[in-house]
């Protein structure tokens, strides 16, 4: 693999990496036919981000001879290559990313002014493809705004604020800080901002809805959009479905996919759809192995097809964040306990999947790959699902 970025694009590349660092600790790098994909996911799998840089972004783009090459590395290592972000466009003339497969190193070379050459040989790990399957076109609501609007809006909320609630009606958008139900509401500071549809470049709300998502993870995208001047588009549906924020221009596309809080008492909201067969709950198993290299990604966008098949699945999915590290059996028991407990305020996780080159991947094929991955897990439900 040999890619060369020049001029201002070096800074764009660096900024994309910095904004991904707000999501997760590892950077997943994968050359695809459409260009170079840089991805990251957070530890609870409730936020995913991907920047796709088209071949035109680069002065030269040569995909690796090994079509299935992909790797991941600590994102801090890559950020260290692009230190002094502010002066990057003044000092760096060219950035070259090469794969040195013999030594298992990714070499990033920065050609700087005054003849200075900075070479970084980073070690990487092989990994499975990290891809969240999402479909912006199927979202009921679409908003688009200039980054300045979003940045100014978010300014009103304290930097420590984790979750924000966005409500839309046919002509207005409200942004509020989300307060825990059990917090003393008389002590908490409530901030509410109302924006009219006119402030948006595009405002298409087909269903009035209210979603809550994590603001912190979004800030990375806001910084990127503001510096690049690209408008931000938001795609969302009902609570529980992820919200997708994206920026695009002719040579790059950035998508930030964030899970939203599901409605507590509504088990129907928690489920994965297009990549799962109702008979199985394979993805949870993969989570349980806690092995980043064998994740299944699916999106929770529709109702549970057959609740009778796996009676405990809804709470399980919704409590993903808490139970990811436990073995499968423990999780089941815990979730049952949790369903009886206090209101379920957990983000639905995004499941991560094996390589699915096209969204139209057949469900049964997916099933097969899931089965392979699940075969090593400690899935107690296996007997039920076969």
């Amino acid at each position, binding site marked *: 693999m040999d890619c060369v970025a020049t001029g201002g694009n070096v800074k764009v590349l660096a900024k994309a990496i910095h904004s991904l660092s707000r999501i997760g600790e590892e950077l997943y790098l994968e050359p695809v036919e459409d260009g170079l994909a840089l991805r990251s996911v957070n530890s609870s799998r409730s936020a995913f981000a991907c920047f796709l840089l088209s071949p035109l972004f680069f002065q030269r783009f040569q995909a690796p001879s090994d079509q299935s090459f992909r790797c991941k590395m600590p994102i801090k290592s890559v950020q260290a290559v692009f*230190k*002094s972000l502010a002066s990057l466009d003044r000092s760096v003339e060219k950035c070259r990313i090469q794969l040195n497969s013999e030594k298992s190193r990714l070499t990033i070379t920065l050609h700087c002014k005054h003849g*200075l*050459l900075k*070479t970084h040989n980073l070690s990487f790990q092989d990994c499975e493809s990290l891809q969240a399957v999402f479909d912006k076109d199927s979202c009921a609501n679409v908003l688009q705004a200039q980054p300045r609007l979003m940045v100014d809006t978010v300014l009103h909320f304290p930097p420590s604020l984790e979750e924000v609630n966005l409500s839309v009606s046919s002509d207005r958008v409200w942004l509020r800080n989300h307060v825990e139900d059990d917090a003393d509401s008389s002590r908490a500071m409530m901030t509410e901002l109302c924006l009219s549809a006119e402030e948006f470049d595009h405002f298409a709300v087909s269903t009035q809805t209210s979603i809550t998502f994590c603001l912190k993870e979004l800030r990375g995208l806001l910084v990127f959009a503001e510096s690049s001047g690209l408008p931000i588009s938001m795609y969302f549906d009902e609570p529980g479905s992820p919200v997708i924020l994206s920026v695009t221009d002719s040579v790059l596309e950035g998508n930030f996919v964030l899970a939203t809080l599901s409605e507590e008492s509504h088990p129907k909201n928690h489920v994965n759809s297009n990549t799962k067969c109702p008979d199985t709950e394979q993805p949870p198993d993969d989570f349980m192995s806690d092995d980043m290299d064998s994740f299944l990604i699916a999106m929770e966008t529709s109702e549970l097809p057959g609740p009778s098949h796996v009676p405990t699945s809804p709470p399980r999915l919704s409590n993903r964040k808490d139970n990811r590290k436990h073995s499968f059996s423990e999780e089941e028991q815990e979730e049952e306990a949790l369903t009886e407990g206090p209101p379920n305020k957990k983000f639905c996780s995004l499941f991560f999947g094996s390589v699915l080159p096209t969204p139209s991947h057949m469900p049964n094929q997916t099933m097969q790959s899931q089965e392979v991955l699940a075969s090593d897990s400690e899935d107690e439900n296996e007997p039920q699902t076969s």
Partner: protein
Amino acid sequence: MPLSTQSQADNDQYILIASLDNARNLSNILKAISFREHAIFNATQNGLKVTVEDSKCLQANAFIQAEIFQEYIIKEDAVGFQVNLTVLLDCLTIFGGSTVPGVCTALRMCYSGYGYPLTLFLEEGGVVTVCRIKTQEPEEPIDFDFCSTNVTNKVILQSESLKEAFSELDMTSEVLQITMSPSHPYFRLSTFGNSGNAHYDYPKDSDMMELFQCTKIQTNRYKMSLLKPSTKALALSCKVSVRTDSRGFLSLQYLVRNDDGQICFVEYYCCPDEEVEEE
């Protein structure tokens, strides 16, 4: 100026008197070598030399020539003492370091000889402070035996480009490797950290390279922890000369311009971590 109204009798007791209208011309340069608590002062007719050492492997010297001082009186060939550098710097900046133009701390530094404290008279805005700092028996600075005849490789670079490289150095690397060669890579700084290795190459024809005299290829490693303090001197400097001798000892000499544009020098000597013939 109140400091100069001291009586002649007072002056007679001192064997060293050094005065500055702007104490920063001394404090700034001393900060560049302040990585350990104690400093050895050695004053001669030529001026002041202040030495700080670390674990017998690193030595830093700051030279402030006699011409820098508004008043420089020395009554012996050589006057030496050791003081706590941290305390000295605290005293020199006792007025807080105002950056208002035209306002600065004036200094009169006096020493009566062996057994006496180092006396500092500091004045700013009409307020005078007198500090007396205990002195100690001066240790003998290590002689690194670094002489020009043994120098195998020498480059002089403009500090600006090295500053960037040093600020980006991977601190998870235990060593900084310096390669100097008459052929490619000419002058290379390398680190070996947790995420991989990194190389910073300066070509010999770079416009940042003022002098390039390399006779043979040499690669030496130095402990990062030892060299880290030198970045303070680098930050103050406008030019730096990097020399290695046949043993692999490193000499870094920094040209520093003080507030008044006068030139002072800071140098660092460092022992190599291990002999590395080739990468």
